[in-house]
């Protein structure tokens, strides 16, 4: 597909704007970069054919202002708008506004974004497509007797949740049947008082789990998967380290997880790049759908490294109406990839943000470093702290980790405090080397491991 002469507006910033720019240029497109007042000198602006200011530093007045972004893209003569991740990327109203202005939104339909963005609807949609979800009671539980019957089917420990609750309110944990008998009446009374609705439901508590997610690409009719990523190393629900593939899965489980993901993508006539996130319980060899992200993800490079597919370029082609260029059988993976997120934060000081000036920057040969940094760049304090992603690939996980350790010792970013010392410590940790982690691992690890300043 020849996209030369077509114009792409990038409605994002930082490293992903740089990444989208490269993909668009590889397709021969003209790039217009939107930016806030605080981002006039960012790398993606320097790389773009043209740039347009879209408002003040505060993201709600620039990158999150649908009216301004759409107007800027339209006036710049854009054929399409790429939303990146974060900001307006999963905003159905934005997708709609872009299309209403006669441009292409690089992503799924507004309807798909809205449907998968609603947790309850997403769970329903997943169940309808035969995707496993965390075991729970069917509908509302009104009595302790009904709770007991449901609990025996679900298994302990389990959470008792208020049907009308949310945001963690009204949740109780029952370890056994005695707890359940005692807690259900309490929970019911509390839910009635707090929400005016005593309805409860039960959900099995999954404590020792890994985060595994499946990358898919769809063209609105058919979909393919590009295997999975393992992202259990998280701090405050933010991923800090990602790998592909997930070595903890057997081939049979991988096949099943990827197959149900394609089924869900096709059920919603998915268009573009998307990710289904699962909790995987190694003890039971079971996985449960958590949510679907209807955008490109930060950690997409590990998938690119093992499959050789340029996900960002593919999502742009699809947005312009090109059917999928691969059948499932055409997509394989080789070796192992690891990505670590380099944030401008001081891991020796409780991850305090460090919006400084990048001085000398040395990137070792033979590694991929997706970054927004250049020497002399002053990182604005207004946005998130991700400044780059260091990505390595090896024939095996062991070889990838060895390459990571070498890359981490060769990568130099002077002038900033970053999370590089954290990654250096993790890359040498016995549990990380043994791939023996869960989503709870990193926070516990941080309590017992002091990170020395860089």
């Amino acid at each position, binding site marked *: 597909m020849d996209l030369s002469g077509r114009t792409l507006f990038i409605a994002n910033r930082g490293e992903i704007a740089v990444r989208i720019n490269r993909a668009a240029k590889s397709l021969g497109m003209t790039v217009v970069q939107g930016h806030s007042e*605080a981002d006039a000198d960012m790398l993606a602006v320097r790389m773009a054919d043209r740039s347009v200011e879209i408002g*003040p*530093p*505060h993201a709600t007045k620039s990158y999150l202002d649908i009216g301004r972004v759409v107007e800027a893209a339209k006036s710049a003569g854009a054929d399409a708008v790429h939303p990146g991740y974060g900001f307006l990327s999963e905003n159905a109203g934005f997708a709609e506004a872009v299309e209403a202005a006669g441009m292409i939104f690089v992503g799924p339909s507004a309807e798909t974004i809205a449907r998968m963005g609603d947790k309850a609807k997403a769970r329903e949609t997943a169940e309808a497509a035969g995707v496993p979800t965390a075991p729970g009671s069917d509908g509302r539980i009104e009595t302790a007797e009904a709770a007991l019957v449901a609990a025996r089917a679900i298994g302990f420990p389990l959470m008792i949740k208020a049907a009308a609750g949310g945001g963690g309110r009204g949740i109780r944990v029952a370890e056994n049947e005695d707890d359940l008998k005692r807690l259900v009446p309490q929970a019911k009374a509390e839910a009635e008082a707090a929400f005016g609705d005593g309805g409860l439901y039960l959900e099995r508590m999954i404590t020792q789990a890994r985060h595994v997610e499946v990358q898919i690409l769809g063209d609105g009719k058919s979909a393919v998967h590009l295997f999975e990523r393992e992202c259990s190393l998280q701090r405050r629900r933010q991923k800090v380290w990602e790998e592909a593939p997930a070595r903890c899965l057997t081939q049979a489980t991988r096949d099943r997880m990827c197959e149900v993901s394609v089924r869900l993508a096709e059920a919603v006539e998915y268009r573009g790049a998307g990710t289904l996130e699962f909790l995987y319980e190694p003890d039971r060899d079971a996985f449960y759908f958590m949510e679907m992200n209807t955008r490109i993800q930060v950690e997409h490079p590990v998938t690119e490294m093992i499959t050789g597919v340029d996900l960002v370029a593919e999502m742009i082609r699809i947005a312009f109406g090109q059917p999928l260029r691969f059948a499932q059988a055409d997509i394989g993976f080789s070796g192992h990839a690891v990505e670590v997120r380099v944030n*401008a*934060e001081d891991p020796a000081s409780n991850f305090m*943000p460090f*919006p400084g000036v990048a001085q000398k920057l040395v990137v070792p040969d033979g590694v991929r470093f997706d970054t927004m940094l250049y020497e002399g760049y002053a990182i604005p*304090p*207004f*946005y*998130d*702290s991700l400044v780059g992603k260091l990505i390595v690939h090896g024939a095996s996980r062991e070889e990838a980790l060895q390459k990571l350790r070498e890359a981490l010792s060769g990568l130099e970013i002077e002038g900033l405090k970053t999370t590089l010392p954290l990654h250096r410590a993790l890359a040498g940790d016995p549990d990380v080397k043994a791939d023996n982690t869960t989503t709870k691992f990193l926070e516990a690890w941080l309590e017992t491991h002091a990170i020395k300043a860089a």
Partner: protein
Amino acid sequence: MAKQIRSPLPGIFYRRPAPDQPPFVEDGGSVEAGAVVGLVEVMKSFHEVIAEEAGTNVRFVAENEDPITVGVVLAEMD
């Protein structure tokens, strides 16, 4: 001479704990030493701005949601 409260960090300055709540300190109000007078959002994390000394008749120089740099004067007081 007027006392000054300066920002310890660069970022976005907020005078309220949340958009639907009253300001930490009203214009013309008084503060004790150690009182929280505002928040600075830096890279999506929020940090308190503390008055290092007591003062009266607090006058804010920075508006709510203003982008600010390190050391900028946020408020003056007597």
